[in-house]
């Protein structure tokens, strides 16, 4: 089995290096095809491992070599395939294989075609390290590695100012969280003496509650950055500057879920500190609502989907925080499928619309883009959580969890958010595919994407529809590792009322969205309509003014303070002090050189002065030495 582990892990790296070889040469198809094939190999290996684990096999654990060893610290490159990591491996390799194949078509005309595949495969490699590592340090390698690749890919079109800005923002914001993560790792090391998951978690049960709380908080800060939880969320929407396949792979299906993975992986820790878990769940619920509200009014197709991702991450954190780790992981998986599908569909639309992102400028596209229309609609249905699509099984389960755990506030927030989710998803679908063909005003002639791109997307479509039916198999597998709590309402009546009620609520929201946006009356907003001048609308469309606040109150002061530090403090205080001391010495020399006038008689006078001073000093010291006893007596008499 170990050989499959290595194949699954290293084929993306080989693919990345292969594509990297062509980095400087002009675009060649082979730089896209070979990495895709290698990723497919990786996917197959992961499947073999999954089948093995499903068949009740022992988890596969290898230690490749030592990485760092100093003092008592020992960190190997160790990898483990167990029920949790194999789930993640499946999600990562499957979605990334599809995205790779899709990208061959999507990036067809781009100058940086070869480079793109090199980065994309490098990302998959980092992500595989992240999920497969058997220790915190290895996790951190992957953690930073995906951050690096995300930086490279968001800023892929580096000639665009906005893209490079967004890339830097994402990197720096992630770094803030990574500091928390790093501190968490230090704390784990100094309190348990190891960074290996198994030993560390085993040692944690004997630790002080306070230490555990701190570990939990710091690790979660790390998770907040990667999963873009409030207040570190702004980078995710800006990251949409990257190519759309990147958004599908990194900013929907894989990297952003790393935070959820971390919490799930650290479940023995979070089980010991339920109060931190509750905080995580509350924050998750808040982010779910918060992000969904911003998605309601946004006029950028990709950003709407990004906020939707953010909102769904909130759901996952609710589940993870409430101790329903397997539910979180299940939703993570289901979400990866339908959200990647949604993004890839959005990519098709973007291509068709010549990079136009405003859904108000589209409309009626279902006639020209039938395949994409079906896929995006079904993905939205799955996202909204309609039976029997994937979202129903995973998302409604989270609602149930909140209800069963008797956190009714969280439950009602999530329920309300479910309605919002349905509304903004179908607002998007309606605006893009239904209604009048508004794009004609702008002289655009849309066309459907390549056939093979649609074919590549179809596995995702299939999974978005049927993933829910794996629920029980999945439950049995993953609960070998995670707490096996089944969340069932005691009363069957309540269960049916809740389920049907939720479904009705969601369907109503969809119907409302269609009614409002799927007609011919929708116009391209020009900033004059009543709703656009509404305060609520303004707050929401400006993302609660949070980016503005960050810019005004963090970035600008930092820049100004830096400038002050350099020009005022460093140059005018620190350096000036040094120069001042040198100046004093220099000027004292300048002053005293007058003594050395070269005039014999002056010099003789100085000589005489010197002799007299020395003589008198000798006399004074001689006397003091001689009469020291008396002097002391006199001084003590004076009370000194």
């Amino acid at each position, binding site marked *: 089995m170990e050989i499959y582990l290595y194949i699954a892990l290293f084929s993306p790296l080989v693919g990345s290096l292969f594509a990297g070889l062509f980095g*400087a040469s002009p675009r060649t198809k082979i730089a896209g095809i070979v990495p895709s094939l290698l990723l497919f190999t990786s996917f197959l290996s992961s499947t073999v491992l999954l089948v093995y684990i499903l068949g009740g096999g022992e988890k596969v654990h290898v230690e490749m070599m030592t990485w760092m060893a*100093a003092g*008592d610290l020992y960190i190997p490159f160790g990898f483990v395939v167990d029920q949790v990591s194999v789930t993640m491996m499946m999600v990562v390799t499957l979605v990334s294989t599809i995205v790779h194949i899709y990208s061959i078509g999507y990036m067809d005309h781009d100058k940086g075609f070869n480079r793109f595949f090199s980065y994309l495969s490098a990302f998959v490699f980092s992500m595989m390290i992240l999920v497969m590592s058997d220790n915190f340090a290895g996790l951190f390698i992957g953690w930073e590695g995906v951050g*690096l690749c995300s930086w490279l890919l968001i800023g892929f079109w580096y*000639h665009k100012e906005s893209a490079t800005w967004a890339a830097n923002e994402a990197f720096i914001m992630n*770094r803030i969280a990574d*500091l928390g993560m790093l*501190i968490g790792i*230090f704390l784990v090391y100094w309190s348990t003496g190891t960074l290996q998951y198994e030993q560390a978690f085993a040692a944690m049960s004997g630790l002080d509650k306070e230490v555990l709380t701190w570990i939990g908080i710091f690790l979660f800060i790390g998770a907040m950055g990667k999963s873009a939880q409030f207040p570190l969320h702004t980078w995710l929407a800006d990251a949409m500057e990257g190519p759309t396949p990147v958004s599908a792979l990194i900013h929907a299906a894989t990297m952003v879920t790393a935070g959820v993975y971390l919490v799930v992986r650290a479940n023995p820790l979070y089980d010991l500190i339920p109060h931190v878990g509750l905080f995580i769940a509350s924050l998750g619920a808040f982010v779910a609502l918060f992000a969904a509200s911003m998605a309601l009014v946004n006029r950028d197709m990709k950003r709407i989907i990004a906020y939707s991702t953010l909102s769904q991450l909130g759901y996952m954190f609710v589940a993870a925080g409430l101790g329903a780790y397997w539910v979180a992981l299940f939703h993570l998986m289901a979400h990866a499928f339908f959200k990647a599908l949604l993004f890839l569909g959005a990519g098709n639309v973007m291509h068709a619309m010549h990079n136009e992102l405003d859904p108000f400028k589209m409309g009626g596209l279902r006639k020209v883009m039938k395949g994409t229309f079906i896929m995006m609609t079904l993905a939205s249905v799955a996202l909204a959580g309609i039976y029997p699509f994937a979202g129903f099984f995973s998302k409604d389960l989270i609602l149930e969890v909140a209800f069963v755990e008797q956190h009714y506030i969280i439950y009602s927030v999530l329920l309300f958010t479910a309605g919002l989710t349905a509304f903004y998803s179908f607002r998007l679908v309606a605006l893009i595919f239904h209604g009048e063909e508004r794009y004609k005003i702008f002289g655009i002639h849309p066309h459907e994407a390549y056939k093979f791109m649609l074919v590549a997307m179809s596995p995702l479509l299939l999974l978005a529809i049927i993933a829910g039916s794996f629920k029980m198999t999945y439950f049995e597998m993953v609960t070998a590792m995670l707490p096996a709590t089944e969340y069932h309402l005691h009363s069957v009546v309540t269960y049916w009322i809740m389920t049907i009620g939720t479904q009705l609520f969601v369907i109503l929201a969809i119907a409302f969205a269609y009614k409002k946006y799927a007609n011919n009356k929708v116009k391209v907003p020009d900033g004059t309509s009543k709703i656009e001048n509404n305060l609520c609308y303004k707050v929401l469309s400006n993302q609660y003014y949070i980016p503005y606040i960050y810019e005004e109150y963090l970035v600008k002061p930092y*820049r100004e303070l830096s400038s002050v530090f350099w020009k005022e403090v460093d140059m005018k205080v620190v350096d000036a002090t040094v120069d001042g001391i040198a100046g004093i010495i220099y000027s004292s020399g300048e002053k005293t050189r007058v003594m050395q006038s070269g005039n014999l008689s002056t010099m003789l006078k100085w000589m005489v002065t010197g002799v007299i001073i020395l003589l008198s000093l000798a006399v004074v010291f001689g006397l003091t030495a001689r009469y020291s006893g008396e002097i002391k007596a006199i001084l003590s008499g004076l009370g000194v």
Partner: protein
Amino acid sequence: MIDHILSILIFFPALAAMLGFIIHKDSIRAYGVAIATIEFALSLWLWFLFDSNVSGMQFMEQLPLVPSFGINYILGVDGISLFIVILASFFTMIGLASLTDTKNIKNMIITLLFLQMTMVGVFVALDAIVFYVFWELSLVPMLYIIGAWGGPLRIYASVKFFLYTFTGSLVMLVGMLFMAYYYYQATGTWSFAILEWYRLILPEAFQLWLFVAFFIGFAIKVPMFPFHTWLPYAHGQAPTIGSVILAAILLKMGTYAFIRFSLPMFPDASVFFMFPIAILAIIMIIYTAMVAYAQEDIKQVVAYSSVSHMGVIILGTFALNVEGITGSIFLMIAHGVVSGALFLLVGVIYDRRHTKMMSEFGGLAHVMPRYATIFGLMLMASVGMPLTINFVGEFLSLLGFYKQSHILTILAGTAIIVGAIYMLTAYKKMFFGNVTNEENRNLPDVSKRELLALIPLAIITVWLGIYPKPILVPINNSVASIVQLMHDKSTTEEAKKRIPNLVKGEDVKTLEKEAH
């Protein structure tokens, strides 16, 4: 030959430098590269012969100089100094190999070979006076390099560099003399041998004063905040090769001396001053990172980033445990490689455009993709990306210090944030966007000669990031013995507590003895 390999390492370049005067101008470059390559091969041979499992000094040489005052010519290497010696010979080699055409190239090469002698001498000297002589001698070639081949402010910069560090070293010399005097008082014989000083247990009050005296000398060399202002001038004015050697090797003399002198000789004082120094180090990290962010000149960004990273090294050193000190020594190597490479990279663009202002550039990724790639790699190493060389050192240093203080480590950890801010901003300004300046449109990408220097550095950066073990093991062993020595020597309760005892169960034994 093996017995005298350290002497050969020191004096071979110096002799070669003297012979260099009679070599013809046209063949001097080949001559210099050949000498430096032989020296590098010798230092690699030293590594090959080095026994990683021994924690003490190896290849010791001893020769009396002034026996009546106990001044001897003593040399030796251990895991702490070995790799810095190798790094010094390595950088001289690639520095010479990639040297661009300068005026008076003959003098430059002779100076560099002479500089190499002093650098190796500092790191292998085990006698305080010999150490001091090489320490001061190393200023002369650097002064000459900055003063003769520097920018418009070169005289000011070189004089500032010289006087500043010289003043500091004089204070250090006084400390050394007092230390020897104290040794004489305690034992009745004079000695300047560092290993013999190690055996001396000083009263805490003396330790504090001596620590301060040594600290001033070392801190200016590092340079620690607020003694750092000579560095931006020196880097700003020095030619590329000067900056590379200065950043890669000369700054390490200060941090190396902390580990060689301050920690084992004054363990109680080290614990006493741990927090003040840690705070200085944190100021260094954050403050200089912010100053680096405000710079307009790419070379100054790299220069200030050097100071910022040196802060992490200092912090690791004063973690006073094996993890931290090992990390800080590793980070010395790492920072040498990365900042040396960054200065070389800045030199590449300076050779093409004769300006270092970032506003002059933009969109270079279009024009010079290979250059942008290597720069990007070094940038990522500089911000401490895992699997690059810097991360190992930074991780261990911070991990080590976390044992001593949580809050301070969190503050120091912001290094990974502020570092990313200035580096990414600088990279964005230079490489991203469209080519706005017409002069940049046809810049040639990195040449073969430049790649000769950059490719090995890139390989080392990644290789030691993935597999640091061959270097970490010897460092770890030597550090462990120093930490144990410190623990045994320390007299105060606080120091016993802060410096870990590596011999497990010893406390139990002594307790049992007392019980009997």
